[in-house]
């Protein structure tokens, strides 16, 4: 095969050399991501209007079916397609480097698209009513499992291409010894992706064989253990990628850089080493595994990976604050925040995501994931409430935000509907926050997740949830509808811009400016570089402790169990 030298275009806005084939691969994966997201959002709308039993839109069979569809498209397809695009972006364009093997990239894309189509077809045809987790002995049609395997294979190839790109860039000396922080965060995500996808192969291949009748039996306990080695690390990829994008967004919107690169990188190191252990929090109230295994693993090794998140919780806003203070916004504790570019939808999306991920997703995540408090939340609506806070309000909103720069830079189009774009992060954030908090509240009342009828109208014994649940369901519906509006707005803007937006002529055409980096000076030792952020993190800590106290108090009020 003839070696084809990469063709570059010089980006007049950033000065970076852009490998054109690599850029086409980024675009292809980004488009696929949005298609998957649209399916997930339509599913979400149907589900919100079903769980809110005043409407109870879908019949039982279709509820469980669309729940499967929504879970797989939202938690896997949308996010992984977007991340592959991001991985390629971070390992080629950002590093001024070519794509190492474009043909393999297209092969990987073919695999992921084939898997995406096959899986969705099997779900919609009613042959995979097993929900995203597909807990054995629930069984779907073999082609459902094959679809997921194809997708995972394609994604794994994409991840290896990321590492390949890094090696090419390193050998060519385009970045020296140390990767830019954004790419470093993506590398952490890629490492976690390897863990995710290899675990997926270990579990889905035998499951496929079992569904085909080749394997006579599959142990339910083994399945759930290994499946969550795919299931939760998949979400930790999202965490690492999201944080990487936060640093990127801070840089683009206000010229922020990490106040201490060593500390930020150590935080990513802790993610790499320990974050995947906490898949154990899905098995805390399961038999077979011991409390010793549960406590060690669910704690991410003594909460070292949680420490990592807390480091980023300071470092990311601090990067914004330090840059703003260097610009002269030094009055009081929060002038830097008040005078920040709130009219920039990437900025607002990023800040809303940080707050939402931290306060809603993160706090519930840590406490729900403690061995004993899990007793009062497992399989209640609080669990999806938690992860709306992390993967939707956090990762998805972050990804939505950064597209307002990536569309001009990678697709070379202006944003169509900038006015709506400024509103969009707020619609989505407020909607999801309302949705998540009401789900958490309903979970406190014991309302089950993945359940079509909590009126138990066809059950031998009825149970009536407390009256306040009715109010929470209304808030749930309102939040859900607002979030769907926010999501559809984003999709509309993205599609209109990418396919019909006016072409970008040059740097002056950028709909959102790239901030000029500021020199944040001299020695920081012994100083407070981000006093406002420091106060905010303390507020966060207090909130966490309150929620901690509440949940352990509620646990202590239940029956004794040992």
């Amino acid at each position, binding site marked *: 095969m003839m070696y084809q030298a990469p063709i570059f275009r010089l980006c007049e806005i950033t000065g970076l050399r852009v490998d054109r084939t690599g850029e086409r691969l980024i675009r292809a994966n980004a488009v696929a991501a949005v298609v998957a997201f649209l399916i997930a959002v339509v599913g979400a709308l149907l589900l919100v209007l079903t769980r809110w039993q005043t409407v109870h839109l879908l019949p039982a069979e279709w509820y469980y079916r669309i729940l499967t569809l929504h879970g797989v498209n939202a938690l896997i397809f949308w996010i992984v397609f977007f991340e592959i695009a991001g991985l390629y972006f971070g390992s080629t364009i950002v590093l001024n480097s070519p794509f190492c093997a474009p043909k393999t990239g297209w092969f990987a894309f073919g695999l992921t698209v084939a898997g995406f189509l096959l899986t969705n077809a099997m779900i919609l045809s009613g042959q995979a009513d097993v929900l995203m987790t597909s807990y054995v002995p629930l069984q779907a049609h073999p082609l459902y499992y094959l679809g997921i395997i194809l997708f995972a294979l394609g994604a794994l190839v994409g991840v290896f291409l990321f590492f390949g790109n890094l090696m090419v860039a390193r050998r060519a000396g385009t970045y020296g*010894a140390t990767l830019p922080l954004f790419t470093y965060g993506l590398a952490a995500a890629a*490492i*976690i992706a390897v863990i995710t996808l290899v675990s997926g192969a270990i579990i889905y291949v035998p499951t496929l064989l079992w569904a085909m009748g080749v394997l006579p039996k599959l142990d339910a306990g083994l399945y759930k*253990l290994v499946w969550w080695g795919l299931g939760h690390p998949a979400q930790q990829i999202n965490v690492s990628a999201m944080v990487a994008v936060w640093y990127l967004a801070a840089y683009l919107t206000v010229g922020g850089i990490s106040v201490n690169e060593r500390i930020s990188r150590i935080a990513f190191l802790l993610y790499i080493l320990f974050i995947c252990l906490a*898949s154990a929090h899905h098995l805390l109230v399961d038999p077979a595994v011991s409390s010793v295994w549960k406590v060690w693993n669910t704690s991410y090794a003594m909460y070292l990976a949680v420490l990592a998140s807390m480091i980023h919780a300071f470092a990311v806003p601090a990067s914004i604050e330090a840059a703003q203070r260097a610009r002269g916004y030094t009055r009081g504790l929060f002038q830097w925040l008040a005078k920040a570019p709130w009219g920039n939808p990437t900025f607002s999306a990023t800040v809303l995501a940080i707050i939402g991920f931290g306060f809603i997703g993160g706090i519930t995540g840590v406490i729900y994931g403690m061995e004993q408090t899990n007793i009062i939340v497992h399989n209640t609506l609080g669990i999806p409430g938690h992860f709306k806070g992390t993967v939707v309000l956090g990762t998805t909103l972050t990804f939505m935000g950064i597209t307002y720069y990536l569309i001009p830079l990678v697709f070379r189009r202006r944003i169509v509907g900038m006015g709506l774009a400024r509103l969009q992060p707020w619609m989505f954030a407020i909607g999801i926050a309302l949705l998540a908090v009401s789900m958490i509240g309903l979970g406190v009342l014991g309302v089950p997740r993945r359940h079509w009828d909590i009126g138990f109208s066809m059950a031998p014994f009825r149970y009536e949830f407390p009256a306040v649940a009715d109010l929470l369901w209304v808030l749930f519906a309102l939040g859900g509808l607002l979030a769907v509006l926010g999501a559809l707005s984003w999709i509309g803007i993205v599609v209109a811009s990418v396919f019909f937006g006016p072409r970008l002529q040059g740097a002056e055409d950028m709909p959102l400016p790239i901030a000029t980096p500021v020199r944040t000076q001299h020695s920081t030792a012994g100083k407070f570089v981000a006093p406002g952020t420091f106060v905010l993190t303390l507020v966060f800590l207090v909130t966490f402790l309150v929620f901690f106290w509440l949940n352990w108090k509620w646990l202590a009020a239940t029956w004794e169990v040992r």
Partner: protein
Amino acid sequence: MAATQEQEFPKVPLFRLLLDDVLLLLFLGVAIYAVSYLLWGVMEIASVAPFPEELKAQIVQQAGGGQ
């Protein structure tokens, strides 16, 4: 930035080398997860004891008596 220094080899701290080495990090991440979560978890599941015979016999016997 030049990839090689001919005059001096400044001593690079080991920890910094670790932080910069993506492939080593990949190995460590996979290894720690594989041992602590996967292997240990599989071992525990595989070693679950069978239901004790005495208890089973006791329950079944009592049932026979109770009829």
